[in-house]
């Protein structure tokens, strides 16, 4: 619950949801590098998932939590002997708590060259509505 409070007080429109930390024991799961741009009409996420194509991405939004999962299409063969090994090959997983209202039906997701781009349009806050008073 602390996450949600943090989101609203620092005026940031999203923050990482740390509670969702389940990991698959058989296959390594990595945390992708992410950029978020918060503009007037939308939130844009750039998620780096090298080795993932359009068949291996899963994006869900539930209870203001955005979850991103990526499955590597062709993992490096295990019998390959590495002389230099700087990155592990596995799947990607990360989730964020979104503190602004977004239009879930208009989310746009596309992946190209291992980079997932997500556009989450914001729901325009309803302005003050004037209530008509009738003479009774």
């Amino acid at each position, binding site marked *: 619950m602390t996450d949600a409070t943090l989101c609203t007080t620092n005026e940031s429109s999203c923050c990482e949801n740390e509670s969702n930390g389940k990991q698959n024991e058989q296959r390594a799961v990595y945390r992708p590098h992410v*950029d978020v741009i918060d503009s*007037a009409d939308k939130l844009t996420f750039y998620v780096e998932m090298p080795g993932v194509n359009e068949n291996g991405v899963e994006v869900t939004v539930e209870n203001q939590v955005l979850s991103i999962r990526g499955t590597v299409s062709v993992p*490096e063969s295990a019998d390959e002997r590495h002389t230099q090994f700087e990155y592990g090959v596995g799947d990607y997983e990360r989730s964020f708590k979104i503190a602004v209202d977004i239009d879930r039906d208009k989310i746009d997701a596309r992946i190209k060259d291992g980079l997932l781009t997500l556009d989450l349009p914001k729901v325009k806050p309803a302005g003050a509505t004037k209530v008509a008073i009738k003479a009774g």
Partner: protein
Amino acid sequence: MSNTIRTWNPWRELDQLQNEMGRMFGRNRISQFIESKPYPAVNLSHDNESVKLRAELPGYDPDAINIDVEGNSLTISGERHFETEESEGNKYPLTERFRGSFKRTITLPFDVNSANAEAVYRDGVLELVLHRPEEHKPKKLEVKRG
């Protein structure tokens, strides 16, 4: 009468400070200093005939990646900028991705032939296969009984 009275929010001040620091040092540079991992991350494997190298370079235009091979030295270089230009109203709650220019030289286990090198960029992974010149390949010697 001014109508710009706003409630003071310490977080907003911090946000502004961070933005200005970002402008001074180049965004995300501070964290790059702290964790100065070589970029891009590379996995390398080889046998007697060839070297296979994979580098994680998501979201690049393959034309913007340069590969130079000389002897047993391989250099990968390139650069990348923000997808969206910085504008007044935009905020950046998170900037973890690499941006700017990079140049990385990797020493290979042996000299390679640059002429028949293969380079494929797929799903953000650059894969290079570099072959050892015929004359450098280890030769098996036949042992005769004297």
